[in-house]
């Protein structure tokens, strides 16, 4: 049965803006991105949004729907309370370019500072063989679609604006994938502690809550990285063993 839903969509740019009201006819299975597309097509062609796959796989359509960071193409209208208007706005952590489109380039810039995989025997012509048990753990991290919803929800970046002390959960996932790689030979812990700032995270798990790929960011990436950092910096017993071994 066709019904009408009211949306309050943010319109504006980095100088500010306002919520504008739109009424859209719903259809079974409709998602928020469909509603935005309908507005663009029928009511206001100047409304800007970023999208690509409409299958929750490209990570482009991140937004905040009724205050929840989520993918517009994965959020069904029928799952939202429709008595009140559905509020759609751009992610808060990154500067707005226009309407629902934000500038997430900071994420790509800091990603460049993370050292790539360093093989133990660089230069060897032997084929690299991976066993399934070695792949299991890091495979989870490869599911990341770079939607940056975790970066958006992380209070350190979102509310405290401390991009200077913390790389954010998405980059912790990237670092974990490299640090736990069975063939990686880098000593990454000083970088993880000082530059990437893993100790800034207070493990409140909002990144895990919003990840559309259900990556257990806090439990499987951040906390294991904290434990690895503790091995080097907060464990005098291990430090002693290292000294004796040397």
């Amino acid at each position, binding site marked *: 049965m066709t019904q009408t839903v009211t949306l309050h969509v*943010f319109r*504006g740019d*980095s*100088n*500010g*803006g*306002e*919520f504008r009201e739109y009424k859209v006819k719903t259809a079974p299975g409709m998602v928020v991105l469909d509603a935005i597309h309908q507005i663009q097509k029928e009511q206001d062609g100047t409304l800007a949004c970023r999208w690509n796959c409409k299958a929750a796989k490209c990570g482009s359509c991140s937004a*905040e729907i*009724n*205050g*929840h*960071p989520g993918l517009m193409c994965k959020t069904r209208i029928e799952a939202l309370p429709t008595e*009140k208007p559905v*509020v759609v*706005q*751009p992610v*808060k*952590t990154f*500067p*707005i370019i226009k309407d629902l489109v934000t500038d997430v380039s900071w994420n790509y810039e800091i990603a460049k500072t993370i050292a790539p995989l360093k093989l133990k025997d660089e230069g060897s012509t032997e084929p690299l063989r991976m*066993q399934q*048990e*070695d792949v*299991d*753990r890091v495979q989870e991290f490869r599911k990341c679609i770079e939607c940056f919803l975790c970066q958006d*929800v992380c*209070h*350190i970046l979102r*509310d*405290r*604006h*401390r*991009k*200077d*002390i*913390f790389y954010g959960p998405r980059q912790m996932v990237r670092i974990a994938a490299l640090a736990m*790689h*069975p063939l990686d030979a880098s000593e990454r812990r000083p970088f993880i502690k000082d530059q990437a*700032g893993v*100790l*800034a*995270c*207070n*493990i*409140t*798990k*909002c990144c895990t809550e919003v990840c559309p790929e259900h990556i257990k960011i806090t*439990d499987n990436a951040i*906390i*294991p990285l*904290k*434990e*690895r*950092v*503790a*091995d080097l*910096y*907060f*464990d005098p017993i291990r430090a002693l063993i290292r000294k004796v071994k040397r």
Partner: protein
Amino acid sequence: MAVTPQRRSQDKRTFRTDAWWIQPAVVAVVFTAFVVYATFRTFENNYYSAPIHLSDLYQAGQVGDLLSPLYSPLIPIDWKIWGYHVSPAILILVFPLSFRLTCYYYRKAYYRSYFLTPPACAVRGLGGSAYTGERKFPFILQNLHRFTWYFAAIFIVILAIDVIRSMMYHGGGWGVSVGTLVLLLNVILLGAYTFGCHSCRHFCGGCVNSFSKHKGLYGLWRKVTYLNERHQLFAWSSLVWVSLTDLYVRTVTSGAIADHVFFRF
């Protein structure tokens, strides 16, 4: 230096319309209730063990030693400070307390419920850009969690011995009572909590990169991971059950009820 991005004009604490405050509120209430109860019992310094508060049943040799987990291991020191007998529970309190306080799960719970950093996701919490997380004192101490785990693991052994002692009857022979089962469930839940700890997971394989080269550790890591995935569940169930176990021991040793014996052998 804090980097301030350009902000929307519609900036407010949250745009969430659901009851996001319920979860942190429930956690705060349950946790506070536990702290109040445990503090009362620690300072009560009474009704924690059968041998000290002999009941008629005990004298007749019908019950084993029931010891409250809040008082275990029982340190037989009687210190007096300003005329006050120091409770033996205080002497051991630091171990379970520091373990739970630095636990990764409880950190999440109390950072959200007590410190409101943040109270819920996409809700602006307390404190601004001066935030340092666990990089500076005092929260940098959280990184020492692994040391509290070593002691917690020893406590599991001690509590398991308490279960055995509850079955050793003073009149000779063995028996299983309600108290035995209560203590047994307590040690099972605490064991599941302790061995699902993130530090334990790190020692049991998390620290290695190549599981194919450490097959034994891989098996262990997977078992610990099973518990670790349920860490929150065991954190709460063990906390509640420790309190109920203590309450049961208190009820029995105060003479209010007898510890029902199922069978003897």
